[in-house]
């Protein structure tokens, strides 16, 4: 066991393993880039939609429904099914099916948290804002969104962690990323590479989580108790 961990450490620290297109460096960059891109795209779609629906207070059962459905669909299946779709759309294998799957997976948590975040802003506060003469736009930007920031960020965090995790499966549809080391390692029964890759993915996921926790502490409005975070 000690020997094995020594091998893993050696693999991780060998500069040769970090170089080139198939090196750890490039795989790490690929992994981080696709995660940032897909979460950004998903946020660009889901945040405005979620905030608008939350503000309208319509469709009260919507978020529960989306949460339940999203949870029941395995992320592996989303990645796998994205492949035939990407091919039919002429996008080919590798990057695009992975991209498509990750955007789809990132949408529900960002959307539902945004809806809930705006919805749970205290009705009295909203009433006071309107009563003082705020227009809907002012109410949204000056009151509802600032108060919703912690929960909105929690949604983005859940999505980001899930995207970082699921990007690993991109290796199964011909894409790179850190999953390559795990999947290729399995194929040739190279446990050192499997373990090393797993370690990197795990670290990246935990760092993402911690990074968002720090961001949330920094960006949350003062004067507001930290809201319990929904998963």
């Amino acid at each position, binding site marked *: *066991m000690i020997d*094995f961990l020594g091998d893993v450490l050696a693999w991780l620290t060998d500069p040769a393993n970090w170089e080139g297109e198939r090196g750890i460096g490039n795989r790490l960059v690929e992994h981080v880039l696709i995660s940032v891109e897909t979460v950004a795209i998903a946020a660009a779609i889901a945040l405005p939609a979620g905030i608008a629906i939350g503000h309208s207070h319509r469709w009260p059962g919507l978020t529960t429904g989306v949460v*339940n459905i999203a*949870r*029941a*669909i*395995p*992320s*592996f*299946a989303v990645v*796998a*099914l994205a*492949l*035939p779709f990407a*091919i*039919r759309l002429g996008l080919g294998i590798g990057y695009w099916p992975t991209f498509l799957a990750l955007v789809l997976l990132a949408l529900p948590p960002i959307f539902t948290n945004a809806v809930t975040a705006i919805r749970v802003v205290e009705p009295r506060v909203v009433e006071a804002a309107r009563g003082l003469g705020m227009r809907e736009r002012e109410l949204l930007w000056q009151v509802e969104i600032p108060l919703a920031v912690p929960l909105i960020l929690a949604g983005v965090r859940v999505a980001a*962690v899930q995207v*970082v*995790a*699921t990007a*690993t*499966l991109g290796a*199964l*549809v011909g894409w790179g990323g850190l*999953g390559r080391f*795990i*999947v290729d*390692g*399995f194929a040739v029964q190279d*446990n050192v590479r*499997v*373990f090393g*890759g*797993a*370690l990197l*993915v*795990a670290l990246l*996921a*935990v760092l993402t*989580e911690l990074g968002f926790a720090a961001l949330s502490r920094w960006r949350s409005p003062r004067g507001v108790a930290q809201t319990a975070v*929904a*998963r």
Partner: protein
Amino acid sequence: MGGNQPWVRWEWIADNRGQIWDQTVEHLQLTLIAVGIGFVLALGLSLLGIRFRRLYPAITSVAGILYTIPSLALFAFFVPITGLSKTTAEIGLVSYTLLILIRNITAGLDAVPPSVREAARGLGYRQPRLFWEVELPLAVPSIIAGLRIATVTVIGLVTVTSIISLGGLGLFILDGLRRDFLTPLVVGTVLTIALAATLDAALLVAERRLAPSNRTARASR
């Protein structure tokens, strides 16, 4: 995935009925074992966290990290130790249930009103009967809510175990990917979702049986 092959070839399903059934059962087994072991562990850890409040943040932090680690990575960690075995899969799957279950069990037990506990003591209840006959039954809705989330989550994750050469419905998804064949991919996905929906509904029914008085109570997430 080339060409314009149909989403489902019914002949394939007919030809592979036996296989489909076996893997569904396998999937169900992997799930139930994981949730079962996870529940026992989580119950113990929750009681520990309630008895020793200072431990609670530490327990949830560790469970939180386990929950954050991508499933494939978590499986991969144990392959060098436990090999490509069911044990490897179960260790990973159980890890995922802990955070969800601990949170819900603790929340449920914490929510037992102190007045109820007082009254039970006044009637002569003492531990451990107080726990089994009063506190636990009152926490049932919250616990079942946790079990529902954990079960549905695990069913999804079991599909990933096929990547480390284990069974379950993920085999069809992987098989479809490898052979460029849509039918098993669709079958695997649909059955996984169906299994999740079925178990979720079963747990809902169980909750109504176990805690009929709490029917109107809203389950906490």
